[in-house]
């Protein structure tokens, strides 16, 4: 029983070091565990894959840089999928702190597929007022965004002639780290303009999205970094992209981290129950 007492008295810093090393190791030397895609990611993938070429999909960037590790890979994976299928991508955002991220994606991803700004991708930028923005876009996008994020009038962008209002857009993929986020697109865009709403969320709020999936309001869900990795794998398997997949690269560490937490709980409990019977 001395072992159990020792186990319980281990200094927390040793645990920190063990966890730190175990999480860092696979980043340097990947274990290659591979990622399998779940049903929720496939539903979203099939919904976007079914959009006919030439049509436009809307991506709403509603998160800030501190949720980048979980949500940014989703943005790049969906954009690569859309461009590989010759879909046009319209970007907007309900978080002011997300504007920089959408701008970064709108400049880095299109060149990979030879797509030009204004013809294949447009970033509308951020506007205050959540419901007013969505409802406004439902009636006429130009009323809400007379100019795009870079100050160019929408009339000068050829792509915007094919997209006047939300009814012209089959699906919106809302990537949200909280509120405002996918719930606002469900509340205002889906019920009123019949748009299909897919969502990408941080892992913390994933469990709370299931009531909306069950009621049929939502078309697919990507949860946390794992959701991003699932979509990256789907896009790569379909031959749409050969780009580096940051989320997949992190999955080995994620696996190891979860196993570590599991073992820590089990060992901790066994040691606790052992000493509790004898000791206190």
């Amino acid at each position, binding site marked *: 029983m001395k072992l159990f007492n020792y186990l*319980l008295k*281990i200094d*927390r810093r040793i*645990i*920190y070091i063990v*966890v*730190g090393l175990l*999480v860092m190791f696979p980043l340097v030397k990947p274990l290659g*565990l*591979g*990622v*399998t895609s*779940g*049903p*929720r990611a496939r539903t979203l993938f099939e919904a976007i894959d079914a959009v006919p070429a030439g049509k436009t999909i809307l991506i709403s960037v509603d998160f800030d*840089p*501190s949720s*980048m*590790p979980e949500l940014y890979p989703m943005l790049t994976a969906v954009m690569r999928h859309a461009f590989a299928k010759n879909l046009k991508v319209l970007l907007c955002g309900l978080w*002011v*702190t997300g*504007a*920089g991220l959408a*701008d970064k994606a709108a400049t880095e991803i299109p060149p990979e597929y030879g797509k030009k700004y204004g013809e294949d991708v447009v970033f509308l930028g951020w506007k*205050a*007022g959540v419901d*007013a923005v969505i409802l406004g876009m439902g009636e006429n996008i130009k009323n809400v965004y007379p100019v795009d994020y870079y100050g160019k009038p929408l009339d000068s962008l050829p792509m915007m002639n094919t997209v006047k209002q939300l009814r012209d857009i089959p699906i919106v993929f809302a990537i949200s780290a909280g509120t405002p986020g996918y719930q606002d697109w469900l509340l205002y865009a889906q019920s009123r303009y019949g748009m299909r709403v897919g969502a990408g969320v941080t892992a913390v709020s*994933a*469990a*709370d999205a*299931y*009531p909306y*999936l*069950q009621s049929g309001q939502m078309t697919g869900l990507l*949860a*946390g970094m*794992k959701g991003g990795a699932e979509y990256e794998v789907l896009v790569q398997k379909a031959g749409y992209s050969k780009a580096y997949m940051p989320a997949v690269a992190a*999955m*080995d560490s*994620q*696996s*190891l*981290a*979860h*196993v*570590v*937490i*599991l073992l*820590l*709980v*089990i*060992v*901790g*409990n*066994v040691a*606790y*129950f*052992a000493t*509790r*019977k004898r000791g206190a």
Partner: protein
Amino acid sequence: MKRSIPLAICLIMGIAMMIQFFVPHPASVAFYDLTTKWVRIVAAFALVLGTGSLVMYHVDKLQRRRRGWYYSIVTLTAAAATSVIGLGWGVRPGSPLQDIIFSNLLVPLNSSMFAILAFYMASAAYRAFRARTKEAALLLVAAFVVMLGMVPIGANVPFFWFLVVMAGALIVAGLVTRSKALFIGTGALVVGLLVWLAFSGFKVPRLMLPDTAEWVLSVPNMAAKRAILFGIALGGIATSLKVILGIERGWLGGGKQ
């Protein structure tokens, strides 16, 4: 007078916004837009409250030279510098506020604050998360299923083997503690596994961990979250109604004037 007018404002605004929800008339829509803009403006001024008390707290700490007063200098200068840079050179991405301060100061600090929580999680997992009660044990098992089911390592692990490991842990715990309840629980689990094995023709059942995790999320978790949603909604509505009708006056603050 100092109480009745604010209570009257609160009552009028509350009732007006509730009625507005049901009236699609353009006048009502205009009222909604106008008040929304006003609230956004007034709420922006509320920032004065938060910032004001923070600044006063640190200035007071500085004047009294209380322990760690020099850190207050850091906070005050950082707040002043950032707001001056932000107000001076604008907030459009590409401005110094966004490119330098936000991306290289705020983001690393903010995400590092959350990242160290992963370490606290690990040490709490080892030293605090105990299956003291059967509810806590059930919670931990459900957490294990979800955690393993969500990552590649659990992708091709049959749920059957997971339960076998759980049964093993229960047996060890049972032997160590000799608690009757644990023996009954373990016995039931082992019998259940044998029946399941028999049913699937003595081959390991094909149900994989990720599918089990998906089931845990979309059936029991969904039902529980929906029940909690009802509770939160009814609680929120009751509180808001009490605020509007002036029954709940906590926000008026102390003092009887």
